[in-house]
């Protein structure tokens, strides 16, 4: 994967709530990121191919498929693609099923933590070879 400048990274937001997709897109767009969104999890495979994201923000509760499965699928297809879990639940902070995720951010009206985590994860990704690291 080509090394892009951090600000230009492309982020795919997978969330079934339109409001979350819109507000997070706006927030991250303002930071200079390129943003793509997906609501329908059956299309993740297609979206990964068509959008070629540098990072995925993944909600855990998704209609029709759970986020754990989506995470597994992404990490099988693209082991080097960082995934940050972005959820309203704190129950899964230490869930072993999420061990391969690169970060866990609890949804909040303040996007500061999310932005910091994205920055950190993208920086780590640039520094290390594409391999499923955990953070």
């Amino acid at each position, binding site marked *: 994967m080509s090394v892009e400048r951090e600000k230009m990274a492309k982020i795919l937001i997978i969330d079934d709530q339109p409001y979350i997709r819109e507000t997070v897109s706006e927030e991250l767009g303002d930071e200079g990121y390129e943003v793509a969104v997906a609501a329908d999890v059956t299309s993740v495979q297609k979206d990964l191919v068509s959008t070629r994201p540098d990072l995925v923000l993944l909600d855990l509760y998704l209609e029709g498929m759970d986020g754990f499965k989506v995470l597994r699928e992404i990490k099988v297809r693209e082991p080097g693609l960082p995934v940050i879990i972005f959820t*309203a*639940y704190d129950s899964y902070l230490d869930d072993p099923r999420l061990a391969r995720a690169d970060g866990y951010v609890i949804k909040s009206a303040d996007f500061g933590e999310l932005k910091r985590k994205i920055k950190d994860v993208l920086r780590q990704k640039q520094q290390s070879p594409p391999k499923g690291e955990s953070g």
Partner: protein
Amino acid sequence: MAGGRGQRLMPLTKRRSKPSIPFGGIYLLIDITLSNCINSQIYKIAVLPQYKGQTLMEHLDAGWNIFSRALGHYLKVLPPQQQLGDMWYRGTADSIRQNIHILNQDDIELVLVLSGDHVYKMDYRLFAGYHREKGAMVTVGVIEVNKKMASRYGIIEVDSDFRVVGFEEKPEHPKTLPGDPDKSLASMGVYLFDISTLKDVLANTDGMDFGKDILPGVFHEVPVFAYPYKMENRIEEIIHVTDEATGKRAARLIDRARDSAYWRDVGDLDSYWNANMDLTGVDPYFNLYGQKWPVRTFQKQYPPAKMVFASEAEDPPRAGKALDSLVSHGCVLSGSVVRNSVLSYNVVVQSWSLVEESVVMEDVVIGRNCRIKKAIIANQTRVPANTHIGMDLSEDRKRFTVTPRGIVVVDRDDFA
């Protein structure tokens, strides 16, 4: 156990105290802690209610009038009597100070101080065993929390023997565990005192709260130990396993159920919502369906939950169903779908509505064609047809309470 005002749980605490907030469909929060007591064979209990105690008193009278005075067992409800002045209870320690006389009535050695708004299954016998083994005067239940959550709690520092050597209340930069910079030790607000120490502390200090005022001083004076709950607590349970080949379901006793390590302080709306969500699913974080550690309550009389209309083929489908959810007695899902939710008694969800990831309290009617996601709907709310909740938070913020995590809280007054 005292019941706090619960400002961070508004509007749920508009009309009731924290321990009497409904939980898990048919329970009140206090049922969890009281069940822990009787499952731990503790039969001398004093409840110290504070604000808006009516619902709590009625519930305890209806559901917990089960103790035999003849055997020396009791559950006493002790609202503020203003015996020592004209004040209400000003904190956990103050509530006990004002009722210190009851501790003189029996031959009591150890006093367990609990909170009526925690969700956990704790065997207090193991806690007391640890306290005696350590030669402690005070033992505090502690839990490892992710550093992210640590600033909400009292953070405790221990030596290698788990003796308490430091205490900070809700620190901005919490001390982390040696060897694990992501974790801190938080006080659960569960304390065990030798009675002599408790009396001394209450007599010699004027601190109102154990966590805030008393513990930070007392560990210099007497041995205070931390009880690592996640490691030590052990609830055995019977689980049922179905053999894939034969289809036979067999019971198996396991010596430590997964929720032995579960603990949650339901102090704000987000954690309240999350604790309810933890009850749903195939293998929930907190299991209400165990046999060895029953949670009791006062069960109200309602007919069985009913799911009607089976017209899946209609367009749009009109089929009543609940998936990954808890549905209490009296509920009617009439051509509507409920998913990942907890419904209390007597909830009606009308046709073509969809309710997801929500907590719905007693006597709520959700009209036709509603779309509700990540919401808490307080009792007796009438949600009009075609209402959307949790779909557009900027709209929701104009009418309802929306939490930091985006949970929308709806009260009956919102649609009045």
